[in-house]
Each structure stands twice: as C-alpha cells, then as structure tokens.
C-alpha cells in the first residue's frame, strides 16, 4: 500500500511537471466537457427543458473513447519515461517482485487518470445543477462515471501497459492489439465454433459512447420528437453494469492475462539463451541472426520469484473465470431462447371460456434488482355445464412457480416459456369452484436476445441454432434482460406478478405486427385484492389507487389482462380534490407549468360531454422514458402521446418527452384524453378491439372539443392514397379515423352521433362490447344502416373517388332541369351530397354511390343555375384528386 502510494505520488509529480501531460489533460477535459458545456450554453433557449440525464448522456457520449486514449497514452508515457530515459536499470534492482512492480505501476497510472477523468464529470454535474436545482441527481453522474469511464481507464491502461511492457514498443503493441481483436478474435470464433458453438464479440462497444444517441439528443433538444434519451428519473445502473460485464468480459479476461504475463517481460534479469550453432557461411545467416535478436528480445525474464508465478496463476484463473462466466451466460441465454422457441412453436391449449377467475388475491414483494416474491390465490369457477381439467395461464417467463396448492385434488404443472398449464385431477365439476395458490419467485422482465437480424425471433433463433458457419452466430452473452422493475421505474402487468387465465389461442403475432403472442382478446372482470410491497416512493395502479409509500393496496374489479401497476422514484402533487399529478422530482418546475392546464382540462372535459360523469379521481403520471423508447410525435395530434392505462379510464401516462416541453401542454389535449379515457372506462370492450376504441374515443373527443381540423376528404395527387382498416393495429390510421368520423357525424347528425356513443357506452351493460356494436348503435341513433360503412372502412380499406359525369342543363318551360351522374372510380360505398347553386338559392340531394358504381341524379330548379357542386362541404369520405370533376359551371345554353 505504501509502495503504491509512492508510485502514484511519483507518477503524479512527474506528470504534473510535464508540459505534455498538462496539455493532454487540458485538451482531454475540454474535449470531453465540450458537449455538456455547449448544452449548457443553449439550455435557456431550447423548446424542450434539458434535464440532468441529457447532460450525463452528452458527457458520456465521447468520454469512454477519449478516456481509453488518455489512459493508454499515460501508460505508454510512463513506460517510455522509464525505458527511454534510462532510469529503469536502477528501478529494476529494487528489491520488489516483478508482479508487485507491474501492479503498482498500473495502479499508479489509474490513480493519475482518475482525477483527470472526474473533472469533466464534475463540470457537467455542476452545469446540470446550475441549470435547475436537483442535487439528488448527482448520483447519476457518479454512476455514469463508474459504469462507463472507470472501466475504460482500467482496461485501456492495463492493456497498453502490459503490451507495451511485453513488446517494449508502443507502436508494436498498438498493432498487436488491433490484430488481436480483429483477426485474432475472428479466428478464435471460427475455431471455437467447431468445438463449442461459442462466439465472442470484440471490445468495440466497451469504449463506444453512443454516436447515434448524441445525434438524436441534439434533435430532441431542438424540439423534435422522441429519440432514445435516458430518463431523468434515475440512472439505469444495474442494467448498465450488467451489460458492462458481458461487454468487457472477453477484453477484460485478455487484459488480465496480458497484465499477468507482462511481469515476466520487465527485462530485469535477461535470460541466458544458448546460441544457435551456425556455419559462418550459412546462406540464411543474416535472417537467422535477425530471428535470434527477436528471440533474445522476447525471452521472458529469468529468476522470477514465487510472487510472479502466483500472480500469473491468479491472473490466468481470473481470466478463465471471466471467460467461463461469459460462456455460461451464452449457454443460459441459448437455453432461454430455445425455451421461447418451443413456447412459440408448440400448439398450446388455452383455457375454455366457461372457466372464470372469480377472485384473485395477490400478496407480493418487489425487491432490489426487480426480484419478485409473491403468493397468489385464485378462485376459479367452472361456469360451463361440463367438467374441465385443463387451465392455461399466462405468466412472465422469468417468474417461476415454486409451489402450487389446490383446495382439493391433485394438480400437474407444465411450464413452457410464458405458458403455464395446470391440469387438475379430478376435473373441476360444473358450477364448482376451486382455489389455486401459487408461490412465485423470479425477476419479471423482458429478454432481448442478441441474435442476428433480420426476421422475427423464430427465424433469428433458427438461424443461430442451425448455423454452419460462425458468421451466423452472435455473442448471446450480450443479450439483456430489462426487468419490469428497475431503479428508473416499476411497470408491472398482471402477468408479471400472477398467473392470468389465457382464453385466446396461444398464437404468435403475424410477422408485421411484432413479437410474442397475440394479446388476450377475451376479458372478464375479476375481483382483485392486491397488496404489493416495493422500494419506490410512489406506485399507482390502473384502478386509480395512488400509494405514496412502499406498499400499494388495491381492491377493484378489473379485467386482469389490462391491469397495470406503475411506480418509481417519483413525487406527487394533488390537482384539486379530483386529480393527482405524479412526476419525476427534478421536473418540479415543469410540473408547475403543466398542473395549471391539467386542472383546467378536467373542467373542459366535463363541460364538453355533460352526459359523462368523470371518474371520481384522475391520476396523471409522468412516465419516465424507457431505454429504446422511440416514438414519433405527431405535431398535429399531440393527444396521441397521452396514454390511457388500464380499462378504467382513471390513469394516464404523460411520457417524459411530452412533459419536458417547456410550453405547458394544451389543456384541450388533456381534456381529450380525459373524455376518451372516461368513455373507455364506462364500457368494457373485447380486448382485440381495445386499441381501436382508444383511437376512436380519442378522435371523437378531439372533435367534440373543436380540435378536429380535418374534413372527410383525403388528398391525393393522381394516385390512390394508401389506407388501412380502422380496426387495424398496424398503421394506426389516425387521419383516416378523423375523416371517417367527420363523414359519420354528417350522415347521422351531430347529436345522434353522440347519442349513439352514449347508448353504447352507458347502456351496454356488463358484456364486453365490440366495434361493430358501437357502429350499429350510432347508426341506430341516426336511423341509418351503417353495415356497409363498417365493412368498407372499419374492416376494409375502401376509399371512394367520386367524379361528376355527363352533367347537362336544360331549360324546360319555366323551370330548369339538371341531370348527370356521379361515378365512383374508387372503392367503397359513398353517400355524397350534391348542391345545385341557382340564382334563387341552393338545392341539395344526397345520393348513394356504390363500390365502382354510377348513380344518376336530376334537379328541377326555378332559378337559373350557376353551378353543380359535388360535396362542397367535404363531408363525404373520399379521395379528391386531379382529374376528378367536382364542380360543373353553367355558362348558358349553347
């Protein structure tokens, strides 16, 4: 320890006096802090408030790489100072072991790098604090430094020092490192592949900060939407450090091995080497002489002590352990992937709909690292009139059932990925109930497998599994698990903490829809009694409970498929008696601004739709940005970014990126969400239509609040616009929704339109409603049949294109007769108003034009016609484009 201090003190003294070091250190600090300083300079003028996470991220974007260069430079400088300046012979006779010497040398370099690398961190943290008062966020910077900068210092300096010592030359060692981590690693992967199907990825991203993210952050700061900016809520230390182990793993192992090896290459005691016997006139004399010089230069020291050998062994063991842990990780993720593959390809049998979960009692605890321990008691009743023995549940694949007890009979469990099958013996008789008690343990979360794109998980895994060449393998140890509860937030679905009955088929999403199983489409209400202990300051659930303690207790009747608990290191503020705002502590100032408009939005909502009674208590939660969050903000439809949580319409997420806009969020935006949420909460709907209902109600609310700018007409420049069914989840056809709604409102009349929705929502009863029923209710209120409309636009992708043809004007006696027809060159049924403008006012007709059909019309007018117009108010859903005639003027009889 004393010797280490000496080394470090000497290193610092020597470096501090060297002009070169001072210049390098200053350049380093300036370069690394520059992004954060630049951020600070513009921070007052950006459309989006800049939080500490942005400062931290700007800082970390360049720092690891520059730090690696700095540390390597310091190591090489220290070596050359000793060797080139000729002071090593004296040092080498000192009575310390070579291992001790190398270790202290290394640590002394680390010791000098640490204060230098901390400077930019301190500068950036100070700037972040100066921007807004948020001292509690300083740990974020400390953690960022620990996870991203310190490893770069350790690995880079050790690598440079050990290779510099072994080769004796800086340039040579750089070439060596480059070769090793490219060709060397490739070769190793090829060789390993044949034997063990292993694959190691290089050190690249150990030092890479994230070029992409700084780009995206720049865009975000300029006010554009939704890049991958970390949350201000907390630093995801655990995920980052776990990723670090797999990223640094093989590099770290190599570094340790090199460091241990370098103790034999200090050249303290030059080994005696036997000369090669060569004839004086040997033809290859010069060449062999050269080889001999290399042999001499790279012969390990003789007379190494016990300490050095122990160090080598310890080093090799450490390197081996690290490698083994990576190999183990690879195997672990491979078996998880195999299990998921089985789960997704095997035909699982769902629970029959006669089975209901009457009541579910959950008593659970979420601990550090998102670990779960829980006890769940589910009362299951057979409402059918035949016995049932098979029950299929959905449960997060990372949560294991440790014990299952049933009130009577025996239970057999089978678990594949997220499917949990329970078979009861004897079967559950008709109208009987039985209680299943589960003991659960695990860490609920999502696994992201590091597999090669393209394709969905199944094809990616098949590619990996059946690979015949190492280029198709990936380093599976770099897969990651994103726990449902991290230090940033807790986001638990019911299936994360309890087995939830699965009724819909165990079928996977079609390729263009995403990964995993199709969502549950059949939902029933369950009496839920929940008690969850956790580590966060606040938790809310989709039933509307807000618990500002380490425990949330909730009792409500809810479909489990849409139940959600959300918590985090957040704080709350009441918004009058009827609402609560929950937000990230460092966003206090922003909360002030948004609270105003939130409060008035409640007023606006209740006035805009008086028949609706709003939920007794509304909760708005600022949702911290998730890693990999990438949504595109729709400037013209900001309400789309407020998410409604659960089926009750009481809880809303305001994404952090919306919350951090400096301009207070428009009260109408919240009002629209409140109306839509309340509509959703009043009537249970089948969950396959759940997304549609959210979009539909939001669009209706937006129209109700006078925010809909859109007419019913789709613009097109000659070619047919692409459309999607309104029920489709894929393209989220928001603009089509607005246009179709404009058309519907015209067809049934504004007040009937609202009546129809109220009918569906308020008088629908307990049964889960469908989109079809909603459309029918609207049609019924307006006295029109919307069956075809539903088929064309909700289920189909129809788009009428209407044009006037053969329009003639005749003077018949005292009156005028105008005839012609409307042709639909597009698809779908259209009801289109036609107006005849005359000297004595306008005449109107609405005519029906079927798919690809032609409909004729006749007007008889008293005044002289001016023009015939097709849908001048733009209330008929259709595409208008060049070449379609919508207006025919009368220019007198020829």
């Amino acid at each position, binding site marked *: 320890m004393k010797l280490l201090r000496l080394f470090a003190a000497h290193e610092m003294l*020597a470096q501090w*006096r060297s002009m070169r070091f001072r210049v390098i250190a200053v350049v380093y600090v300036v370069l690394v802090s520059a992004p954060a300083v630049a951020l600070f300079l513009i921070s007052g003028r950006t459309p989006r408030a800049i939080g500490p996470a942005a400062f931290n991220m700007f800082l970390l974007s360049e720092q690891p790489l520059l730090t690696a260069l700095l540390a390597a430079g310091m190591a090489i400088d220290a070596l050359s100072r000793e060797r080139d*300046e*000729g002071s090593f012979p004296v*040092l080498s006779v000192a009575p310390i072991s070579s291992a001790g010497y190398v270790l202290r040398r290394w640590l002394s370099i680390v010791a000098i790098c640490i204060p230098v690398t901390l400077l930019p961190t301190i500068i950036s943290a100070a700037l972040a604090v100066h921007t807004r008062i948020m001292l509690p966020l300083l740990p974020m910077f400390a953690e960022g430094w620990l996870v991203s900068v310190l490893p770069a210092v350790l690995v880079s300096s050790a690598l440079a020092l050990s290779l510099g010592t072994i080769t004796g030359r800086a340039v040579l060692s750089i070439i060596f490192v480059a070769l090793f981590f490219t060709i060397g690693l490739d070769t190793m992967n090829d060789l390993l592949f044949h034997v063990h199907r292993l694959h190691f990825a290089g050190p690249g991203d150990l030092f890479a900060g994230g070029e992409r993210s700084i780009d995206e952050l720049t865009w975000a700061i300029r006010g554009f939407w939704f890049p991958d900016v970390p949350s201000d809520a907390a630093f995801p230390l655990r995920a980052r450090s776990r990723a670090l182990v797999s990223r640094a793993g093989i590099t770290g192992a190599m570094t340790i091995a090199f460091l241990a090896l370098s103790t034999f290459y200090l050249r303290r005691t030059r080994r*005696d080497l036997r000369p090669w016997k060569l004839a004086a006139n040997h033809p290859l004399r010069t060449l062999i002489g050269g080889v001999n010089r290399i042999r001499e230069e790279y012969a390990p020291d003789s*007379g190494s*002590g016990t300490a050095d050998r122990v160090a080598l062994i310890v080093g090799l063991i450490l390197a081996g352990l690290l490698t083994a842990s990576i190999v183990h990780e690879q195997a672990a993720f491979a078996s998880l992937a195999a299990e998921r593959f089985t789960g997704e390809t095997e035909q699982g049998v769902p629970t029959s709909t006669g089975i209901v979960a009457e009541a579910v009692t959950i008593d659970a605890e979420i601990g550090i690292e998102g670990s779960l321990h829980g006890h769940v008691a589910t009362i299951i009743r057979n409402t059918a009139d035949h016995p049932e023995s098979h029950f299929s549940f959905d449960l997060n694949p990372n949560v294991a059932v440790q014990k299952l007890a049933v009130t009577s009979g025996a239970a057999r469990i089978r678990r594949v990925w997220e499917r949990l099958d329970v078979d009861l013996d004897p079967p559950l008789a008709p109208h009987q109930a039985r209680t299943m008690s589960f003991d659960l343990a695990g860490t609920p979360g999502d696994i992201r497998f590091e597999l090669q794109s393209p394709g969905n998980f199944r094809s990616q895994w098949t590619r990996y599994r059946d690979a015949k060449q190492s280029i198709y393998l990936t380093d599976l140890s770099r897969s990651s698990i994103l726990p449902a509860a991290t230090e940033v937030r807790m986001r638990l679905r019911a299936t994360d903490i309890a087995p939830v009955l699965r009724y819909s088929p165990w079928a996977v999403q079609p390729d263009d829809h995403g990964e995993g199983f199709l969502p549950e489409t059949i939902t029933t209400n369950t009496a839920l009694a929940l008690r969850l202990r956790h580590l966060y300051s606040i938790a809310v659930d989709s039933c509307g409970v807000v618990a500002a303690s380490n425990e949330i207790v909730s009792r409500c009747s809810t479909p489990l498929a849409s139940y959600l608990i959300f918590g985090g290191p957040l704080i709350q503020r009441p918004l009058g008696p009827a609402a609560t705002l929950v937000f990230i502590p460092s966003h206090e100032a922003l909360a002030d601004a948004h609270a105003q408009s939130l409060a008035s939005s409640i007023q606006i909502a209740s006035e805009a739709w008086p028949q609706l009674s709003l939920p007794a208590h509304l909760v708005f939660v600022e949702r911290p940005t998730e890693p990999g969050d990438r949504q595109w903000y729709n400037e013209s439809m900001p309400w789309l970014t407020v998410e409604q949580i659960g089926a009750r319409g009481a809880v809303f997420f305001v994404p952090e990126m919306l919350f951090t806009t400096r301009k207070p969020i428009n009260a109408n935006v919240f009002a629209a969400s409140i109306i839509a949420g309340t509509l959703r909460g009043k009537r249970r709907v089948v969950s396959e239509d759940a997304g549609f209902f959210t979009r539909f109600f939001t669009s209706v609310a937006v129209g109700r609040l006078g925010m809909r700018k859109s007419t019913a007409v789709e613009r097109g420049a000659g070619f047919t616009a692409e459309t999607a069914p309104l029920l489709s989840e894929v393209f989220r056809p928001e603009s089509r929704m607005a246009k179709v709604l404009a058309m519907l409102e015209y067809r049934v009349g504004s007040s009937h339109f609202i009546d129809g929705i109220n009918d569906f929502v308020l008088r629908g009863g307990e049964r889960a409603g469908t989109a079809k029923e909603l459309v029918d209710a609207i049609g019924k209120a307006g006295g029109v049949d919307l069956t075809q409309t539903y088929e064309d636009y909700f289920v189909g992708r129809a788009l009428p294109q209407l044009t006037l043809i053969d329009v003639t004007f005749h003077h018949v006696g005292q009156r005028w007769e105008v005839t012609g027809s409307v042709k639909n060159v597009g698809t779908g049924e259209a009801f289109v108003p036609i107006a005849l403008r005359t000297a004595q006012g306008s005449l109107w007709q609405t005519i029906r034009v079927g798919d690809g059909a032609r409909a004729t019309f006749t007007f008889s007018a008293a005044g002289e016609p001016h023009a015939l117009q097709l849908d001048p108010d733009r209330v008929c859903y259709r595409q208008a484009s060049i070449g379609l005639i919508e207006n025919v003027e009368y220019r007198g009889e020829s």
Partner: protein
Amino acid sequence: MAPLIELHGIRKTYSDGHEALRGVDLTLGEGMFGLLGPNGAGKTTLLSILVLALEPTTGTMHFDGIDAASGRARLEIRRQIGYLPQDFQPLRNLTGAEYLVHCARLRGIAMTRRNIDRRARMLLDAVDLTDVSDRLSGEYSGGMRRRLGIAQALIHAPRMLVIDEPTAGLDPEERIHFRNLIAEVAEEVAVLLSTHISEDIEATCDRIAVLTNGVLVFDGGVDALMSRSGHATSLEEAYAAELLRHGSRAA
C-alpha cells in the same frame, strides 16, 4: 566469515555466439576494488551478472554465502547492492531530493518520512549537490547526474556499491572530484568500480583486476601489477604492458 561476493567459473556466451566472459573466478571483500579492462572486455557483462540483471551461461555466484540462483535470495541480494549503471539517468521530472526519496521508498527502506528526508539531504550534501537539490534532475550536468547516481546507489545503505564506468564523458576537473567522492565512500562501503581508465583507480584502489577478452588476466594489489611488468613507472604503463602481453598472446 564468507567473503562478500564469490564468483566461480562465470561464463557468458551471448545468444549470437559471442563469448563475453570465459570463466571468471573472483572473490570480493571490503574496501575498494578496481576492474580494469579495455572497451569490450566484458566489464559491463560481469557487473550485470553481479547485480542480477543478467543470467550467466554457467558459473555460480554467492553473496555473503547466499546462492544467487534461488529466487528468494535475489530480493535479499538486491537489498544489499547499490548500483550505478554505465548509462545512468535519473527521472527527469523529479528534483534531486525528490528522486532520492523516491528511490528510498522504492527500495522499501524502513524509515520514517523525516528520517528518509534527512538521509537524502545528507547524501546530497556528501555528493555536493545541496545547492541544486531542488532543481529538476533533468536539468543537471553530466557530472551532477553521475553524483546523484552515487547518492541514489547509497540511499538504502548497501553493503556493496557497484559502479560501471563512472568517469566516462566527464571533464578532468569533474573526474578528479568524482574519484575523491568514491574514495570517501569506499571508507564505509565495499566498492566495485569498473573502468578502462587506470587513473580512475590508481590512487584509491586496494586491489585491482584486469579483464580482457572475457578473461581475468590479473588479480592483486596495485604494487603487484607494477612489479609484474618490472620497469613500469605508473599503473598506466603496467596496465598497458599487461594488456599487450595478453593481447599478443590472443593474437
């Protein structure tokens, strides 16, 4: 009591086949010992073996009775030897005083910081560097560096000081100054000094050895060497005659 250093049958053949030492037997005790030999005779090779920086091809070495071949012994031997290499350079960015303290710590001297400082000052005084002790050693002249090298080699109070060609490149005044310094040191510590200049050891050495072509051709008192050549009036002449004798034999 065992002699301080005992070399027996030391041979060194470099890996290119060059025989730098061809069987050297040498016993060293207290006092000052001069190793005289022309350029390329093998002096640095021999000294490197002695300070454990080079492994001999064959032969044994004992230090105070301890066999240098064992790993554990090496630490002990290193503790007992002070070494001033032929091409010595201190650490440029440290002052003379700091450099001495650094060497002291590096050698693991069991002393308090105060005592180490005091010892460093004392040594700096002894090598006449007190005035410049707070200047960076990188700014020292060749002679000053060499003197700092002596101080450095003595900082841990070794039993033997090994000095390789200390006067090479020094002006005559510095050279005399340096010789006197070594003579003073030799009163307390055993000194092994290698040189190719006989004047360096003429006045001070109790015993000298002449090394040429890797072979010790003479080992004894100054007087013995003088008398061996019969008519020599100075050590210089006697040494030259000795070299000539063996040089012609080699030729």
